[in-house]
C-alpha cells in the first residue's frame, strides 16, 4: 500500500496546511483510501470552501419555496399539490477535455439530481459558452458539446426546450457547459438525501463501478495547464440508456414506501453520496466495498470510493424492503446490491475483504471541511463614454443592423436546437428560439416556463450591476411569455478564487443576484459554483448563469414573440435613455469596449414586468418580447423575422440620437403588439400606473422602415440572422 505523506497529499490537490489539519484531526497519518476520501470531500467542487461564506447571502426564501439550496435540487410549489424540482449545474472542465462525454454526462448528472427527489424530468435547458469563433478549438468543441447534450437528452426522452450559446475569447481555454433540468413531483412525495434510523440497509443501484472519472471533482477544482490531455481519463463516460432505466426503476420504487433517503452518485461518487446522507442524518455509515458491483477486476478500495462512473444511486431503505426493491431493479436489468448499513457511530467505516480499510468521523469530512474567507477587491463603476455625433455620422442604420444580426452572440441558433429533441413528451408549447421554453404540466391547464441567461460582458464591466441585470433578464423572459416568475437556480462560473480580482467578481455578482432576486421575490433555490475556470493564468469573464422558472396558471394565455397581424400597434414599455456602453453596438460597430453596463432600476423592472403580466392576463396584447442585447431594433427584427411581417417605425421623439435609441441596451424594457381595438384600453392602463411607454410603430408590409434612414426587407435581415452559425459550422 502507498504510504501517505505531504507530497502525495499535494498531488491530491490538498494544500499543505489542509494536510496538516487532516493529520491533526485524525491524530495520525491517513492511509491512502482515507486521503482519497478527504481530498474528494475537501476540494472546492464538493466543499464550497471559498464560496460558502458568500452563498449564505443569497436570497433563498419565499412562500413558493418548498426546498431551498442544500439538497440535490430546489423545489417550488406550483399549486394543486404539484411542485417543480429544478437545478442547474456546471460540467465545464470535463467538457473542454472531452466535449461529447463531458456535456453528455453533465446532462445525465443534472437529471439524476432531479429524479433523485422523486420528480419525473419534464424539460432540459443549457447554457454553453465557447471561445472566439476564430479560435482553432471552438468549432469542434461546439459540435461535440451539442452532440453530447443531444445524445444524452434525446435518448432519455426529455425535451430540451431552451438554452443559450455565447462566444467570447475569454472562454478560449475554458468553455462553459451548464445543464439544467426541471422535474415534476407531487409535493407530498418528495424524496430527500437525509438518512434516518440506525441499521437501515444501504443499497447500491444502477451501473457497475469502473475506473472512469476517478478524481473528477478534484480536476474540476484545478486550473488547466499544458497537460490537460493527460486528464482525459478523469472524464466520465455516459450511458443514457442505463440512466433511462434507472429513472424508470427509481420512480417505480418511489411509488411505494420503502425509501428512507436517496442520493445520486455524482461528483466524488460513492464518497460524497454516502457521507452526505449520513452527515445530514447525523448518523454513521458502514460500507463493505467488496459488495460494490464492479465493472473492472481488482479495483482497490481507493478506486471504488473515488470512481465517478455514471448512472448510479445510493439508497437507504426501510428494513425488510430489500426483496421488493430488488424485484424492481431486476425487472429493469440494473445492478442492485446491499452494500452496508447506517450506524450510530457517526463515522464512515469502510471494509474490504473482511478488513477495515478506513474509518473517519463524518464531522471531519463535512462540517470541519475548510472554509476560507478569501481576500477580494471591489470593482469601481467605470466612467461613462461620451459618444460624439461625428462617430455616428458615417454609419448607416441598415448596415449596422445587418452586422449586429449576424453577430455570433445574436444570430439564430437553430442549427443547435434542431439537434435537440424539443417535442418529446408531447407538452412543449413554446420551442427554443423564443423568450423562454414552455411545457405544459401534463394533464392540467398549467404550464411552466423556463430559461437560462447570462451576461458576462456586463458582469465583467461591473460585477454588482451584472449580477442584478442577469436576474432581471431572466425575470423579463418569464414575463414575456406570460408566466409569473417563481424562482431561480444559479450556476456561478468564475476564475481562480485565490486571485483577489476573481474573488471580488464572485462576491459582487452574488451580491447583485441576491439584491435583485430579493426585490423581485425571485429566490435562488439551488445551484452550483464552478471556480478555477482558468487556463495558463487566463481566467474567464465572470459568468453567473441564471436558470429561471415561471408558472402559467392557464397555458392558453401564453404568448409568443413573433409579430401577428398587419395594422397592429407596437409600444416600447420602459424608458429608453440610449445606453450604449457595453452594448453590442458599441463593441461591434464602434469598437468601444469600456464603460459601465446599463443601470438596473429594480423598481421599474418590477413595475413594468407586473403591468405586462396584467395586460397578458387580460388578453389585451398579442405579442411580447423583451428588449435585451442589441436594443430595440434588434428585438424588433427578430419579431419581424419570426412573424414574417414588416414594421413602420414612427419618428423618435425627444433628444436621444436614433442610434442610441434603436441600439441602446437600457434595462426593464419590452416591445408589445396591440390590436387597434385594444389600444385605448392599454394606454389607459399604462398611464394609470405611470408606466413610461413609447409608441414605436405599426405592423405592416414586408420591410422594416424608419423614415428615410432605414428601408430593409425581412428577407434581407433574415439571411444574415439565420446563416451565420450554419455557415460557420460547415466551413
Amino acid at each position, binding site marked *: 500500500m502507498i504510504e501517505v505523506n505531504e507530497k502525495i497529499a499535494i498531488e491530491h490537490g490538498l494544500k499543505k496546511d489542509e494536510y496538516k489539519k487532516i493529520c491533526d484531526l485524525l491524530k495520525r497519518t491517513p492511509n491512502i483510501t482515507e486521503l482519497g476520501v478527504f481530498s474528494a470531500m475537501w476540494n472546492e467542487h464538493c466543499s464550497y470552501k471559498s464560496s460558502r461564506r458568500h452563498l449564505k447571502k443569497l436570497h433563498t426564501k419565499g412562500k413558493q419555496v418548498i426546498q431551498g439550496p442544500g439538497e440535490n435540487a430546489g423545489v417550488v410549489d406550483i399549486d394543486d399539490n404539484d411542485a417543480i424540482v429544478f437545478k442547474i449545474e456546471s460540467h465545464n472542465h470535463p467538457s473542454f477535455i472531452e466535449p461529447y462525454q463531458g456535456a453528455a454526462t453533465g446532462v445525465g448528472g443534472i437529471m439524476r439530481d432531479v429524479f433523485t427527489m422523486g420528480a419525473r424530468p419534464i424539460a432540459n435547458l443549457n447554457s454553453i459558452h465557447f471561445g472566439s469563433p476564430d479560435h482553432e478549438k471552438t468549432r469542434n468543441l461546439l459540435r461535440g458539446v451539442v*452532440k453530447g447534450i*443531444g*445524445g444524452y437528452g*434525446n*435518448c*432519455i*426522452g426529455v425535451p430540451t426546450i431552451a438554452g443559450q450559446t455565447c462566444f467570447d475569447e475569454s472562454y478560449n481555454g475554458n468553455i462553459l457547459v451548464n445543464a439544467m433540468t426541471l422535474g415534476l413531483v407531487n409535493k407530498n412525495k418528495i424524496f430527500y438525501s437525509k438518512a434516518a434510523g440506525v441499521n437501515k440497509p444501504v443499497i447500491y443501484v444502477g451501473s457497475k463501478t469502473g475506473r472512469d472519472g476517478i478524481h473528477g471533482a478534484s480536476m474540476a477544482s484545478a486550473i488547466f495547464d499544458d497537460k490537460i490531455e493527460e486528464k482525459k481519463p478523469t472524464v466520465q463516460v455516459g*450511458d*443514457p*440508456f*442505463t440512466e*433511462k*432505466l434507472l429513472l424508470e426503476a427509481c420512480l417505480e420504487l418511489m411509488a411505494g414506501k420503502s425509501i428512507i433517503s436517496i442520493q445520486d452518485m455524482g461528483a466524488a461518487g460513492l464518497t460524497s453520496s454516502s457521507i452526505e446522507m449520513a452527515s445530514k442524518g447525523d448518523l454513521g455509515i458502514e460500507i463493505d466495498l467488496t459488495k460494490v458491483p464492479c465493472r473492472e477486476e481488482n479495483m482497490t478500495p481507493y478506486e471504488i470510493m473515488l470512481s465517478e462512473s455514471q448512472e448510479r444511486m445510493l439508497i437507504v431503505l426501510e428494513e425488510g424492503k430489500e426483496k421488493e426493491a430488488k424485484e424492481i431493479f431486476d*425487472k*429493469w*436489468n440494473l445492478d442492485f446490491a446491499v452494500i452496508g448499513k447506517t450506524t450510530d457511530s457517526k463515522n464512515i467505516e469502510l471494509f474490504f475483504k473482511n478488513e477495515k480499510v478506513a474509518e473517519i468521523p463524518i464531522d471531519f469530512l463535512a462540517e470541519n471541511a475548510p472554509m476560507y474567507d478569501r481576500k477580494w477587491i471591489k470593482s469601481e463603476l467605470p466612467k461613462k463614454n461620451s459618444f460624439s455625433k461625428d462617430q455616428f455620422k458615417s454609419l448607416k442604420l441598415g448596415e449596422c443592423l445587418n452586422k449586429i444580426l449576424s453577430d455570433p452572440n445574436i444570430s439564430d441558433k437553430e442549427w443547435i*436546437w*434542431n*439537434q*435537440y*429533441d*424539443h*417535442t*418529446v*413528451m*408531447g*407538452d*412543449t*408549447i413554446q*420551442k427554443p428560439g423564443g423568450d423562454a421554453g414552455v411545457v*405544459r404540466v401534463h394533464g392540467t391547464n398549467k404550464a411552466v416556463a423556463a430559461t437560462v441567461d447570462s451576461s458576462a460582458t456586463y458582469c465583467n464591466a461591473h460585477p454588482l450591476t451584472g449580477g442584478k441585470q442577469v436576474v432581471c433578464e431572466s425575470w423579463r423572459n418569464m414575463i414575456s411569455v406570460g408566466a409569473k416568475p417563481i424562482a431561480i437556480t444559479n450556476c456561478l462560473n468564475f476564475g481562480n478564487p485565490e486571485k483577489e480580482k476573481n474573488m471580488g467578481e464572485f462576491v459582487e455578482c452574488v451580491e447583485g443576484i441576491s439584491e435583485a432576486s430579493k426585490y423581485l421575490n425571485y429566490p435562488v433555490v439551488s445551484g452550483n459554483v464552478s471556480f478555477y475556470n482558468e487556463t495558463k493564468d487566463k481566467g474567464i469573464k465572470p459568468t453567473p448563469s441564471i436558470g429561471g422558472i415561471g408558472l402559467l396558471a392557464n*397555458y*392558453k394565455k401564453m404568448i409568443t414573440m413573433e409579430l401577428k397581424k398587419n395594422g397592429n400597434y407596437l409600444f416600447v414599455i420602459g424608458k429608453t435613455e440610449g445606453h450604449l456602453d457595453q452594448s453590442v453596438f458599441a463593441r461591434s460597430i464602434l469598437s468601444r469596449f469600456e464603460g459601465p453596463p446599463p443601470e438596473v432600476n429594480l423598481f421599474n423592472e418590477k413595475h413594468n414586468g407586473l403591468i405586462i403580466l396584467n395586460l397578458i392576463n387580460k388578453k389585451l396584447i398579442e405579442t411580447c418580447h423583451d428588449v435585451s442585447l442589441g436594443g430595440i431594433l434588434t428585438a424588433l427584427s427578430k419579431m419581424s423575422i419570426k412573424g414574417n411581417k414588416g414594421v413602420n417605425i414612427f419618428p423618435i421623439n425627444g433628444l436621444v440620437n436614433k442610434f442610441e435609441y434603436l441600439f441602446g441596451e437600457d434595462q426593464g424594457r419590452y416591445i408589445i403588439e396591440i390590436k387597434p381595438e385594444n389600444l385605448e384600453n392599454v394606454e389607459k392602463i399604462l398611464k394609470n400606473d405611470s408606466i413610461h411607454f413609447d409608441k414605436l410603430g405599426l405592423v405592416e408590409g414586408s420591410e422594416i422602415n424608419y423614415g428615410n434612414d432605414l428601408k430593409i426587407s425581412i428577407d434581407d435581415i433574415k439571411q444574415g440572422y439565420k446563416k451565420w452559425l450554419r455557415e460557420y459550422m460547415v466551413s
Partner: protein
Amino acid sequence: MKSSVIIFPGSNCDRDMDVALKKFGFKNQMVWHNDDEIPKSDLIVLPGGFSYGDYLRCGSIAGKSKIIKSVIDFANSGGLVLGICNGFQILTETGLLPGILQQNKYLNFICKNVFVKIKNKENKYFKNIKKDVLELHIAHNEGNYFCSNDELKSIEDNDQIAVTYCDQKGNDDEENNPNGALKNIAGVFNKNKNILGMMPHPERMIDQYLSGEDGSLFFENLIGSL
C-alpha cells in the same frame, strides 16, 4: 377499439402514444417487452425511443426481443401494426417491412416540423384523410431510408410507399429531403398494407398548442377505419 403499445427498455414515446390513442378513442394498454403475449388488440404500436439503447444498430435488439414473436404472428395474420420512428426501425429489423434506416445524411439528429405527402390512401391508415399533405414532426438520428434497387422496384410496384417528405405544396423532391432518404421515403407499408412504419411522429401533433395538429387527422382516420 383496443390498442397495445409495446414498451421496450429505452422506449420514450410510449406515453405520448398512449395519450394520443386514448384521446382519439382507443382503449389502450401498455405491454412490457418481456411479456409472453399481447392482449387481444385491433392495433399494435411500436413507439419511438432508443430501444435497448440502440447501441448495436437502431432497433436490432428489439427485433429479437421476446415480445416480437407475438407482434410478427399478429402482423402475419393481418393485424394492424404501426411503428413510429424507432418502431419503424424495429419493423425493418424484423423483416416485416422492407429496407433499412441509416444515419441522417448530414450526420446530425434532426428535430423539426416537416411536410409529408400521402402516396397511398387505399389502406386503413390514410383512407379517409382529406388532405394530401400533412405537417408532422420528425426527431431522429437514423431516418435515412434505404433499400436495394430490386426492393425499391418491388415496393413501388406494390404501392408500398406510404408517405414522402415534401414541401407545403407536396413537392417531394431532393430540396425537401431532410435526411437523405431514398426517394424522400418517410414511411412504407408491407405488401398487404396492414403494417406501416414511418419516421414522423403524429402523436406529437395532436392539438393546436403543440407544433401542429395534423397528427389528429391521422388518429381520427385510424379509429374511424377500424
